[in-house]
């Protein structure tokens, strides 16, 4: 599962699983910080959004009146950090009355079996 690059740098497949809604708790925010660091270490980082985790990608979030720092813009910047593997669980999305058009970034919507298979291919899974 671990890819060896020419310069012998070890690249591990690390999947972050986001299952919490934003703002109510800090988990998804601090998860995003971890993702950015791991991407800076040139690891093969992916994210899977499941259950309430899909709410973190909702468009039009505005936390200004909460006086909590919003982090939605960071999602749109993930591409710049080469974090391009964003998987969304189709059932979680549908259960919440959302579609891909409601999301702030481009994602791959997959069924749970496909995401389960990807989980099996990881070196490490980081739950959030």
């Amino acid at each position, binding site marked *: 599962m671990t890819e060896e690059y020419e310069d012998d740098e*070890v690249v*591990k497949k*690390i999947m972050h699983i986001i299952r919490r809604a934003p703002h109510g708790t*800090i*988990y998804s925010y*601090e998860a995003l*910080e*971890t993702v950015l*660091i*791991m991407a800076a*270490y040139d*690891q093969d980082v992916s994210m899977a959004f499941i259950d309430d985790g899909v709410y973190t990608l909702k468009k039009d979030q505005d936390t200004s009146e909460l006086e909590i720092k919003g982090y939605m813009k960071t999602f749109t910047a993930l591409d710049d950090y080469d974090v391009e593997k964003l998987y969304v669980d189709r059932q979680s999305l549908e259960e919440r009355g959302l579609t891909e058009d409601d999301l702030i970034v481009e994602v791959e919507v997959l069924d749970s079996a496909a995401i389960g298979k990807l989980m099996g291919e990881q*070196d*490490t899974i*980081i*739950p959030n």
Partner: protein
Amino acid sequence: MKIGVQIKDGPYNHQAADTAYQFIKAARKKGHEVFAVFLYHDGVYNITKYSEPPNDDRHIANRWSELGAEGVTIYACIAAAKRRGITNSKDGEQHIMPNTEITGLGQLTDMAIVADRLVTFGD
């Protein structure tokens, strides 16, 4: 095998710190190398020096300090720690348990790279 552990919730508040500790004890007993513990979110409270549980309760901060002395590196995330007032040293005084460290998220990345298993405990 090389095992890294991550704890994402606070001691006493959640069982995570207890389950992680029992897991680490058993893994070491079985001859595995638990090389590091990374404390994130409220997990950083695990290493405050000022924890004073009642005498008949377990002392979680001491457990981590003892494991630290035995070669299991105990790290708390600096960003999470700073937000919560957990600081290494200020005014020349040490504010976290002996044999524990405050470090960056890069350390968790290194753990993920080096470990055969990274096991997370939390809420």
